[in-house]
């Protein structure tokens, strides 16, 4: 897909917000991720041109953040916490259950994360950074499938509310 001319106009406006163009790197990476579902090499190269820097510096920044995905992850990122509170509340079993349920499904990526500050709801998950918990595998699958069917409206892959960019 790549950036559209409309995106480029928006990018210009984002860059203009900052005294130094390079400060706009993270918002632009999020823009790219929301556009394509992941940060493509083409996007990193174009951002480097916009910011007057090199793709190496864009990649350096991009690779620092696990929320910036540098390969396709589908439509939904399901983050399962296995840190201490979730660990003792069967978080690992939840992770295994979701992983086996969605293995080979290109639309949904299940990932393990460290503490997401939802210990009161352990075991907790995020679906495109929307919190759910406590859930077991059946409940989690049910919510995911609601997103898939369109019954629930998901945030973007970067966690923004739709249309709020």
């Amino acid at each position, binding site marked *: 897909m790549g950036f559209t001319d409309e995106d480029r106009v928006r990018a210009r406006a984002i860059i203009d917000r900052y005294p130094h163009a390079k400060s706009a790197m993270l918002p632009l990476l999020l823009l790219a991720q929301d556009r394509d579902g992941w940060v493509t*090499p083409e996007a*990193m190269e174009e951002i480097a041109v916009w910011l007057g*820097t*090199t*793709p*190496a*510096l*864009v*990649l*350096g*920044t991009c*690779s*620092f*953040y*696990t929320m910036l995905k540098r390969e396709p992850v589908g439509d939904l990122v399901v983050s399962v916490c296995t840190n201490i509170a979730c660990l003792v509340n069967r978080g690992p079993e939840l992770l295994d259950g979701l992983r086996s349920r969605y293995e080979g499904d290109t639309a949904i990526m299940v990932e393990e994360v460290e503490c997401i500050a939802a210990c009161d709801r352990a075991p907790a998950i995020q679906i495109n950074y929307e919190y759910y918990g406590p859930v077991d595998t059946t409940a989690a699958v049910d919510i995911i499938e609601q997103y898939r069917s369109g019954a629930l409206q998901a945030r973007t892959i970067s966690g923004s509310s739709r249309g709020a960019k």
Partner: protein
Amino acid sequence: MSSVPISQWPSEYKYSAPVAGDTEMVNVTIDGVEVQAPRGELLIKVAQDYGTYIPRFCYHERMKPVGMCRMCLVEVEGMRGLQISCATPVVEGMVVTTQSPDVKEAQDGVLEFLLINHPLDCPVCDRGGECPLQDQTLAFGPGESRFVEEKRHFEKPIPISDLVLLDRERCIQCGRCTRFAAEVAGDPLIDFGGRGSSTEVITYPGAPFSSYFSGNVVQICPVGALTARSYRFKARPWDLSAVETSCQSCSVGCRGVLDSASNRLVRFLGVDSEPVNHGWLCDKGRYGYEWVHAKDRLNIPLVARGGGLVPESWPQALELATSVIRDVFDKHGAKAIGVLGGAQGTNEDAYAWARLAKGVIGTDNVDAQLGDGLPAEVVIGMERATIADLDSARAIVLLGPDLKEELPVLYLRVRRAAVDLGVPLVDIGASNTGLTPYAQAVLRHLPGDPEAVTEKLAAALAGQPTRPDELRPLLEAIDKRALIQKEGPVVVVLGRSSVAEAADATVRAAAILAQAGISAKFLSALPTANVHGALDLGLAPGFLPGRVTLAAGRDELAKTWARVPEEQGLGAAKILANAAGGEIKLLVLLNCDPIADFPDGQLAKDALKNVEHVISLNSFTNESMRHADVVFPITVWGEQRGSISNIEGRVARLGRKITPDGSTMEPWRIATELAARLGHEMDLESFTEVQDEIAQVAPAFVGVDSKLISWARDGAVLPVADHAAEITLALSSLDQNKRSAGVSWEPIPTSGEDTPGNGAVPPAVISPPRPAQALYSWAKQAPERTAALADSYSLRLVASRTLYGNDLITTQSPSLARLATVTAQLRVNERERDRLGVADGEVVRVISSRSSIELPLVVDPSVPERVALVAINRDAPGASDLVDINESVTDLRIETLSKPVIKES
């Protein structure tokens, strides 16, 4: 003394040495000793200057502090917790403890932490034995580790460029390499990727760290994470022997240390010389030592016999050369002899050959520049700037070649002045250069036509009230800078941006600036290694050694020399023309190859075809020596002691590190041998005797004798006509303090015959005498333009060098050879390409008034319209086929091979 409350600390922290105007000194107590330091200087630097070494990994004096490694923690009275001394500026009354139990505990912790992931493969690591991590672990570390788990493992080594390899396991994430790339070189092609324990140095896929300065990161890496392909596994540091010397790959004269093992050069490292290179080297200088060991080096004299060149003994070859010289002299007189070249050798070579040519034979047809420089009277007589003057300039004007391609470390110094110190920069030229992005004013002109824009600039700098739009950002920058830098010269970096146009236009532009009343000073950008030494020592028509003309220096020199030529001789172009025409019967080629190097290749070919005799001194065979009577093999850089003069006229020492193979001879000794056979003993037995004779007879070199040259590690800048005639001396660029505590990543020359001063202790101050006679001063005049430039051309040629071409250093050094571009291309921008209607890479016919050749056309967006770029250091066919030395510019017509293109005008 009480400590100062934090509320009274300066609000702005400085990271570099204080700039002029801020020299307020403060009292600081370090480990109980009270010292004085400039306010705002970094604590780590102040401590070091006074002999207290605070351990560090990420801090580097030539870069901004980042505080990444936490190794330099110290206690500062009144501040909570330990402070990183690399980012703490000193203020009045500061009390510092660098060796308390708390500091020791912190150092133990930092080192244990760094060593958790650092492999202990020191026995097979290039850095082992001279490794800051090794040394500081021994000096400051805990001595043992509690870490028993498996360490990280990565695939290794990963090439991050053609020259530099990365071993990620060894990296301690100090950020020296990434900061160097971004801050110093301006090529941010490496960065940290990932996070936490998986942080690693990365390049972007398909975009390697192909900076001209990539080798510096190997030198500044405090561990063995970055290694050089050329040095990897070649030697252990304790087996190396080292000598301090100057680089001769271009004319900046960077100071460095040359290492050898078993009589082979294995490494060249930069030395931090404040006035010259700040410790940096370009990759060509750093890895170019390899060519010394090229298989094809000449190592026996050759003489013409039976239609070819055959080996001969030195005595026989010298006899033959002598008889050739005598024969031509007797039959046709001294004027039938021309001497070309000498810009690649040492000052001693240049002087001895000037004395042989002018003082023994009596010809003034001598020229070190092969039509690629500027008139000798300009270079010798212009008011000179030093490299350090860039830092305090009111503005810098670039009127010459692309410094990044031709004088890379000068590019770093100009870039630093512009970016870090805020010196306003003006770029005058026909096409973009590496410094164009940093310029406040970019004044583009058609090739060969810089006068109009220069006049406009000169008027604006001189204070003309109206401000042209294109100069407004520049003038505003100058106004802003005037707040901290009121005085200061306008430094003009002056050179030849293209050999496809006559030098006259550049000289006219220089004269405009010199006469504008803006206190312009000139820094030469002629790139050939020792061209400035050669000119200063008389290898130019009309001049004698020491920056005096034939007329001015004759009487004094006649006391030492047998004779001095009566009238001014010819420059390279006329020497070659007269050789082609038959008036000159003998050409002596001093380590030069006119067919490859002279801009007008056809003239050079005609000259060498028609001339009766050729004597050539060289280290390789070349086309120009094909019809030579005698070829003498010569010693080269690394094999020969002596001195060179850099772009500033700084005379600096050359060290010898290896004994040459075979039977080569120093060029100056060949001159004395020939002179003796011609009946004139020069009485010069060693290079120091040559240096002492130069100091005695060459007015500009007065006081610069062998002793001073060996003592002055940063070299001595020659006095300059009509301004302060002091020789500036820096006796030591290697501060002993930096090497305390066994921390040795600054290269250290070992003792030996090349030790500075040969063991003698220099005096604290040297006040050399002033020249007894006035040195030559440029009249700031230039020849008038003879004819208007034609307007109805299709493209005008710009012919300039790139760093890696078909030159010997690049092609004969295995590390660099892979970077060499040897085929010429015609570079134009997209619009010109479309106008011609050809595809990118398509071969086209390029027609000049001289000849017609076929070249591939390549699109280069940095080339302006109506301009075509062809690099000159390429194999034929190329730029030298197109240039006519008698034309003021080189206009081109392009035809496609299938159909002629209709010319637009």
